[in-house]
């Protein structure tokens, strides 16, 4: 059972990640569509964050291939790239499960750091900037405009000059997404963006993600436990359990998949074989 994706922005093939004796990710393959919201779900410890860390270069996978494709047809083999080059060149950005903002810097500054590479070039790697050349000033103005645009979308305009660490939790989540969007990614990977949000904030987040997909031509890959978010906005869902893919399809398909239900609800030991059998049948 594999969901067919016409124009994948990201393909993961035969990904394996081993930590000592533990196989955290086991022969995982899936595609992420260019304008899709794809959700990666599974019980705790299923290896979702490990997959993210492999995609974004924080871990080097034991085996497997991870390919990012741009509209231009350019491809990037992410498992061979340094972690910082993945957002810079392959244009795959991410957020973190435990929010990682620059807490002592303001919202605007956070968004400016997101545009570091563009601004570095504009400042002639600092040499132009230090002498106040006009090229840099223009670039900085544009960067502020882009930052304002994303503050607007994330509803953070009023707090532009506040320290990021001062924001309430929900705003911090949104700021982290906005900051990632400032890198102008082709694929945005979100690690539990709705965790800890109240229903209203969660609703705002949904809107933001739908907006990103619709307006910005950016694929979204997200890890999420909040089924409202997952079922409400995703086009494609991949289910992991113990590092293996157990289901892959549309929300409708996933909802009715017995192996997913078993993985989530937990099954008694005697039933495991039975369920595994069902999964195998489902896979073939």
């Amino acid at each position, binding site marked *: 059972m594999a969901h067919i994706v016409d124009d994948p922005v990201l393909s993961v093939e035969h990904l394996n990640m081993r*930590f000592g004796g533990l196989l955290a990710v086991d022969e995982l393959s899936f595609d992420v569509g260019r304008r899709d919201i794809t959700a990666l779900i599974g019980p705790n410890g299923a290896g979702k*964050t490990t997959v993210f*860390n492999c995609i974004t270069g*924080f871990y080097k996978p034991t085996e497997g291939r991870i390919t990012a494709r741009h509209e231009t047809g350019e491809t990037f083999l992410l498992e061979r790239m340094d972690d910082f080059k993945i957002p810079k060149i392959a244009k795959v950005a991410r957020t*973190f499960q435990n929010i990682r903002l620059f807490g002592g810097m303001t919202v605007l500054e956070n968004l400016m750091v997101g545009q570091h590479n563009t601004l570095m070039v504009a400042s002639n790697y600092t040499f132009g900037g230090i002498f106040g050349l006009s090229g840099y000033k223009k670039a900085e103005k544009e960067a502020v405009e882009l930052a304002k645009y994303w503050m607007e979308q994330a509803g953070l305009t009023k707090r532009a000059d506040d320290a990021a660490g001062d924001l309430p939790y929900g705003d911090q989540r949104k700021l982290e997404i906005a900051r990632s969007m400032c890198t102008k990614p082709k694929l945005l990977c979100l690690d539990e963006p709705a965790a800890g949000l109240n229903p209203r904030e969660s609703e705002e987040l949904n809107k933001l993600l739908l907006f990103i997909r619709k307006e910005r031509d950016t694929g979204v890959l997200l890890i999420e436990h909040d089924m409202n978010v997952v079922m409400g906005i995703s086009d494609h869902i991949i289910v992991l359990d113990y590092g293996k893919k157990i289901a892959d399809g549309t929300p409708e398909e996933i909802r009715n998949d017995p192996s997913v239900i078993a993985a989530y609800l937990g099954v008694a030991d005697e039933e495991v074989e039975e369920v595994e059998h069902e999964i195998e049948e489902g896979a073939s």
Partner: protein
Amino acid sequence: MEYFLQQLINGITLGSIYGLIAIGYTMVYGIIGMINFAHGDIFMVSSFIALIVITALGLTISTGLGLTILALILVLVTAMVIASVYGWTTERLAYRPLRGSFRLAPLITAIGISIVLQNYIQITQGARVKPLQPIIADGYTLMTRVDANGEFAVQISNMQILIIVVTIILMTIFSLIIAKTSLGRAQRACEQDRKMASLLGINVDRTISMTFVMGAALAAVAGLMFLLYYGVIDFFIGFVAGVKAFTAAVLGGIGSLPGAMLGGLVIGLIETLWSAYFSIEYKDVAAFSMLAIVLIFLPQGLLGKPEVEKV
């Protein structure tokens, strides 16, 4: 070959002293993640205390063997006790008020304490080097070689035997304390997670104090050994020995007791061998370069656990 063997013995002796100091660094760093910069100076103070007690007892080379051993035990215990008080007091006054505060603050106070101790000893004991006549003489000749250049004997002195034996005994005692006693358990728990440890009823402040006391006591042992081995001390020995001992702790893998000992031996050996075969002036350069090389290629040290980056 014989020459090398001799240097090996000298290196292990020196390494034992570094290792004893390094344990203090490694334990403190393990438990509160702080470079206790003043630790080298505690070592220096304790060697002065040892010198004072030896002088007061009138211990000389002509003292009988039994009496010498008794007197040295007395010197050792006094130095350990007083050094412990120094360690406890510095922790209490300069580090505890800053616990949980800005990370660099305790480093600065530690440097401050280091300056204070150095100058305090300089004022009270004088700036000149203090020579001590050897107390333990003789040794054993392990092998001799006679060739065209004359005779060369590989020797191990009683002093060296004493240093190595005392180091092994104390290492064993302290390893047992860490492994078997409730204090050791509390220490390991605080190392893992201080907040959780305190929730489980461990007196974290006391555990940390005890860590400083243990580190200082071991530094005092090193202080006495250093004094007996070299026979010369001054108020500045703490800095160089401290930096090298910290190097040893990092080299062995910070937080690991056997690592500190191993690191001490490696640093001691490098220093002696480099002095013997290359140049004595650049022995410290060799030790420090070794540190940089190990850290670059093996950042967790020789016996430390590799760190997995949590994302």
